């Protein structure tokens, strides 16, 4: 497999008046081209910190990150951060606009995503009239619209109810494969992680170090919903759960 990003000995300490917080320590891993990589770990262990550094939002860290190609990164934050004074459509187009990539084609693509994800009748509405799940979908579309090569997602489905969550993760999975994106996702949900991922990184509690990296090999690998029926599913669930359990 081609390596897209090499992360070596990444460490990060937050400094504030209250003192230092060691968030992550000596984290080393590769991101392969076209893979779906999921990072799991207990809450507050440093997952978002890793994504912030990967997107270069946070430039104060120790260690090295090497990209083997010049690629654009899309980052869907943990919070939806929709702008209340913009309509749903304007919100979805915001990323394209700032990146100066807004044209007829990208606009059409974005609107097609809105239509497909149950936001057809809400395009001209303002975010305050949306449910939590809908807001999260708009946030996701805002990032997907820019067609990033690497997509970073921080708990992208956490505000969705179970049914929608299954459906949306199925759809997003399809788009990701269609567009040939590489994904790094942070999740709390073990079953979801197993059903979508090629590899799963388990982090220790803070300061986060890499505990284990699992390659997920399911027989008859297909869509996330189907993957849940694979016979290896329970096995992975069990070892991941034990791994996380020992954390706390």
């Amino acid at each position, binding site marked *: 497999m081609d390596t897209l990003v090499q992360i070596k000995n990444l460490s990060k300490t937050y400094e504030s008046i209250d003192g230092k917080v060691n968030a992550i320590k000596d984290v080393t891993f590769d991101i392969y081209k076209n893979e779906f990589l999921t990072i799991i770990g207990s809450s507050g262990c440093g997952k978002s910190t890793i994504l912030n550094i990967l997107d270069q939002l946070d430039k104060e860290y120790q260690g090295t990150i090497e990209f083997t190609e010049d690629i654009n990164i*899309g980052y869907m*934050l943990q919070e939806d*951060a929709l*702008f209340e*004074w913009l309509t749903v459509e304007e919100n979805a187009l915001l990323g394209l606009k*700032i990146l100066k990539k807004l044209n007829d084609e990208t606009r059409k693509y974005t609107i097609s995503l809105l239509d497909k994800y149950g936001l057809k009748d809400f395009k001209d509405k303002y975010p305050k009239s949306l449910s939590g799940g809908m807001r999260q979908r708009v946030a996701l579309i805002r990032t997907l619209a820019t067609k990033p090569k690497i997509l970073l997602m921080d708990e992208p489905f956490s505000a969705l109810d179970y049914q929608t969550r299954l459906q949306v993760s199925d759809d997003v999975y399809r788009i990701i494969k269609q567009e040939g994106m590489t994904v790094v996702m942070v999740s709390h949900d073990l079953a979801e992680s197993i059903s979508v991922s090629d590899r799963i990184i388990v982090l220790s509690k803070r300061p986060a170090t890499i505990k284990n990296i699992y390659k997920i090999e399911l027989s008859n690998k297909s869509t996330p919903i189907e993957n849940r029926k694979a016979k290896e599913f329970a096995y992975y669930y069990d070892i991941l759960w034990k791994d996380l359990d020992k954390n706390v």
Partner: protein
Amino acid sequence: MSNYKSKYKKNKRNIFLIQISIASIFFLVWEILARCKIINTFITSSPSNIVETIINLYQNQNLFYHIWVTLSETLIAFTLTLIISIIISIILYKNDIIAKIMDPYLTMLNSLPKVALGPILIIWIGANEKSIITMGILITIIVSIQTIYNGFKSTSATKIKLMRTFKASDKDIFLKLIFPQNLRIIVSTLKINTALCLVGIIMGEFLTSKAGIGYLILYGSQVFNLDLVMAGVLILIILSTLIYNFIRIIEKRLEKC
């Protein structure tokens, strides 16, 4: 539902009727007391005298000219305050150190009674319209800076982070996030400002002026013409209400989107 709505409307109309009645009764009692010579109109004036004075002003002494002078001074002071306070707020927002250094000074200046600066203005700037406008600016600017700057500061860190994920420049962040997010705060500052600004202008006109509503009031008191003083005050009330409502219409427009 419709029952509730009609009840609500009826309530609203009743309140309005009571409000109108209070004003009417006030003026009526005032007029009766004046006519029956229970109060001395030389000191208190009377509604009919005020109306007569206003008509007189309109016919002989350029009523609208005086209104225009005050109004234009207010508008100039108001616009300059807005521009200056937005610029200073941007500077403070960009430079945390400067903001921290300036903070106690702003608080101090804010609590200083600006009228006290009147004589200094006259000596430094001269007994002219510029002093009046400066007075209008002085009285509003500190509060505007504090409100707008605090608005800028309270911009959500997550939204700024989101903008950064799209490689937004500082200019993008200001124009597409901070400014629109604070538009409402700015407009409500404007609402308070217009009223305050008018206060400053009238104070300035009291200090030095050749025309304007403040001039009419001051002149009236100097020649002991209480009809003119009261007429000036009434015109001021109407003027400030009109300006206030104008800004409120703009605010309502903004709320819709």
